[in-house]
């Protein structure tokens, strides 16, 4: 460790990290545009200037992102001189910036806006017209570029070069005429483009899917874990009032995904749509499935499982460890084995984040004794059974159309996010999706990822843990009652 002095206070800092890192980890909120902890530093925006004194020499103003820390270095990030040079720099950055914050999707989470608000002079000294450039240039399906807002920090260029290692962006032309461009205006490719909107410190690169969708200050942000592969990237789940899911954004996790996430997970928004969700419970009436009180549905499910025979139990790969434990205990009580549906690996695997394994909790479930099973084998197992429980988010969708072919003698209990109307179903209850419940997934490397409640589940939908507990309780009363008889 290296000891430096920040504002007169000695602190221990990591000698391998630039000065700006030491400042940020010690509560000094020095602004940054071109610097990003996950990218190589170029020191071009010059906004992170601080005053530094080494030895007895005169103090110097340096860019903290390109300055290594050295023992005995005295840093004055908040000196008058440091503020002055940063204010000067800010004025230049704003010279051609359109200041169209009222219509900018980045407003509210824009580094340039924040710092202008904190230190800007309120009035521009430039009477010249600002640069007129393309305001909405499509860079492919994912990203829209606003050349006027761009402050040419080149984070996007470096991101494409250094992270997915698919260099596609560059700074074209010179000086104040510079713009971010792709070769021959070709659309961007790859499945990490969404990160460009995150690394962009201003509203120059925005997600076409998020454009004009929400003001970011209206979004409620909850920590969560991505469920689209077994990497389990840490994310922030952002929902609008009314519970509409608007964005997933990567959340820094040094062990799992660092600053990034793939577009597969980022745009898995539809999967959490509230439309068509199973609300409350359904039970089989004389012919049709009819809405029912969840307690009645649990009664009906208990009836199914108290009949002789061992029900087949198949869990969704999205089941959390906590839910898996309850389900395993229930299955043990019923004398059944536990399986989880494991779809075949997809072709999305890469050497960055995506594992290609669509089961976010494979390690967790296997650790609990669940055995993986594919849809075909699962359906075969089901068609030979007299009773069964299929349980968890998206399980019906994963088993697919084959569910409709199951014999009517099979008495099927379903716990799923979406309703399933096949002849075998006797009772079904809604479950929360993975942005509506707490729990833990164990990722491919054994790291635990926590789920968080970003919005409440639809009405009448209880946490799966509670539903399983209720079912266990109901079964035990039935068993006790039977014993007394």
């Amino acid at each position, binding site marked *: 460790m290296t000891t430096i002095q920040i504002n007169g206070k000695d602190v221990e800092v990591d000698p391998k990290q630039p000065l700006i890192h030491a400042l940020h980890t010690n509560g000094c909120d020095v602004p940054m545009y071109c610097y990003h902890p996950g990218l190589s530093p*170029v020191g071009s*925006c010059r906004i992170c200037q601080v005053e530094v004194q080494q030895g007895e020499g005169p103090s110097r103003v340096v860019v903290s992102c390109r300055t290594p820390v050295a023992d005995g270095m005295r840093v004055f990030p908040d000196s008058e001189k440091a503020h002055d040079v940063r204010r*000067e720099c800010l004025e230049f950055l704003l*010279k*051609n910036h359109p200041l169209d914050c009222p219509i900018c999707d980045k407003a509210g989470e824009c580094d340039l806006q924040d710092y202008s608000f904190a230190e800007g002079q309120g009035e521009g000294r430039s*009477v*010249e017209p600002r640069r007129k450039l393309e305001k909405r240039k499509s860079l492919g399906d994912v990203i829209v570029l606003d050349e006027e807002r761009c402050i040419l920090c080149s984070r996007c260029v470096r991101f494409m070069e250094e992270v997915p290692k698919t260099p596609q962006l560059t700074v074209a032309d010179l000086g*104040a005429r510079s713009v971010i461009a792709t070769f021959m205006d070709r659309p961007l490719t790859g499945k990490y483009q969404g990160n460009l909107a995150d690394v962009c410190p201003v509203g120059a690169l925005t997600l076409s899917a998020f454009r004009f969708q929400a003001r970011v200050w209206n979004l409620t942000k909850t920590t969560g874990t991505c469920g689209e592969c077994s990497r389990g990237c840490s994310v922030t789940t952002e929902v609008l009032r009314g519970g509409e899911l608007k964005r997933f954004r990567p959340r820094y996790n040094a062990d799992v995904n660092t600053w990034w996430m793939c577009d597969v997970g980022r745009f898995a928004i539809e999967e959490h749509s509230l439309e068509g969700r199973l609300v409350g419970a359904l039970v089989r009436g004389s012919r049709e499935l009819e809405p029912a009180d969840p307690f009645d549905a649990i009664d009906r499910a208990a009836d199914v499982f108290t009949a002789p025979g061992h029900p087949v139990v198949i869990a969704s790969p999205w089941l959390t460890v906590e839910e898996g434990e309850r389900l395993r205990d229930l299955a043990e009580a019923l004398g059944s084995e536990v399986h989880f549906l494991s779809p075949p690996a997809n072709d999305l695997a890469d050497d960055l984040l995506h594992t290609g394994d669509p089961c976010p909790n494979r390690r967790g479930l296997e650790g609990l004794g669940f055995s993986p099973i594919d849809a075909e084998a699962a359906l075969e197992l089901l068609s030979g059974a007299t009773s069964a429980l299929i349980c968890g988010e998206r399980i019906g969708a994963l088993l697919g159309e084959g569910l409709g072919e199951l014999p009517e003698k099979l008495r099927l209990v379903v716990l799923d996010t979406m309703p399933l109307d096949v002849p075998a179903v006797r009772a079904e209850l809604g479950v929360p999706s993975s942005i509506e419940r707490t729990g833990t997934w164990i990722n491919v490397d054994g790291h635990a990822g926590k789920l968080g409640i970003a919005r409440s589940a639809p009405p009448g939908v209880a946490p799966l843990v509670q539903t399983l507990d209720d079912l266990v309780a109901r079964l035990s009363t039935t068993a006790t009652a039977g014993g007394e008889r």
Partner: protein
Amino acid sequence: MSAHETYLLDRAVTENSHRLDTYRAAGGYETLEKVLKDPVEPKQVIEELKDSGLRGRGGAGFPTGLKLSFMPDVEKDPRPRYLAINADESEPGTCKDRVLMREDPHGLIEGILITCWAIRAKASYVYVRGEYRHEYDRVAQALEEARAAGLVGKNVLGTDFSCEIFMHKGAGAYICGEETGLMESLEGKRGHPRPKPPFPAGFGLWGSPTTVNNVETIFNVPFIIQRGAAWYRTMGTAKSPGNFLCGISGHVERPGVYEVPLGIPARQIIEEIAGGVWKGRELKAWIPGGSSTGLMPASTIDTPMDHDSLKEAGSMLGTGAIIALDETACVVRASEVIARFYDHESCGQCSQCREGTQWLYQVFSRIEHGHGRVEDVELLESLANGMAPGKTICALADAAAIPTHAVVRHFRDELLQHVELGRCPFDGNGGEGTATRREPAGASA
């Protein structure tokens, strides 16, 4: 014209000066042979250059021997090392290196070979400005001759020393004359200057130790090695020894490239060597060393042309390219032209430079074209203060700020006169004219 010892242009004025046999007949490559075969140890070469006090002729005036000595010890650092020659002469007003390349390319090649020996480089790159087609061809042709004569390539002059020289044509960007921008460009990337540290001597071309030197600087090397540091110090001043090539342009009778000793008063160059201000007019302003060094008032022409005297006078020797402006010239117009150049040539990395160079041009242009405000003078100064010194990755922002400071300091009245009149006082049409020089309003009638 004053009589002083010359050496730089002595060969250049002879017939067929660019040919190998002419060069050899004048004693060319003898110094190289002596260095390689005697041999003169690389350290000795660097020591001799240090003793001579030779300072870089590219603009910054850094001591050359010291720069070469920054190259890491070859015993401790096995990486290949390179010498890059900055022939991207693009500082406005500067036209000295082209004369050397065109008329005396073998002098440059010999300088390169001796310097490579000194820093133990096996390869050198000559980065020639894209517009210098003729000069490029001349050096390339000389290189062919030298290679055929066993002077370049494997086993130079039959010794163990091997050195290859590669030519590279730039595409006309000013920023590629900045040493790290030049290296990026050589590597095939955009000519964006690199932040320093690391310095080229530690991490240069392809991450290897590199020294970047100007053509004229390297051209001096064989003379110093051949005739000795003591001889070199008989010319110029104590802190800036030697002769330099002064390219003088603008409103003088005999513009051109002249060899003069450092420390010669600018007055002597303008009034005697270049024949004085043309058409019998008075001098109004002059630029000592390329546009980046700023306009100086005529009253300062007694300043000696050396690094320290000009620094004291608030300017720089730069590339030693004098531009003279006569009394009919408008300094605001001149500043507008200079500012437009930096706006055009800023690479666009650093915020202050990218936006500041454009802003300066816009303000100068506004004042010149009759839309200036009194507060613009203060704005100019404050913008220049925001851009420099040392606030950006490279010195281009400084190069734009220095002339701005200079014009505000020395010609504030003329700026304010433009603002008050609402037009350019040197132009009948309110400053809406072209970039051509204009007659004063009264004289054209």
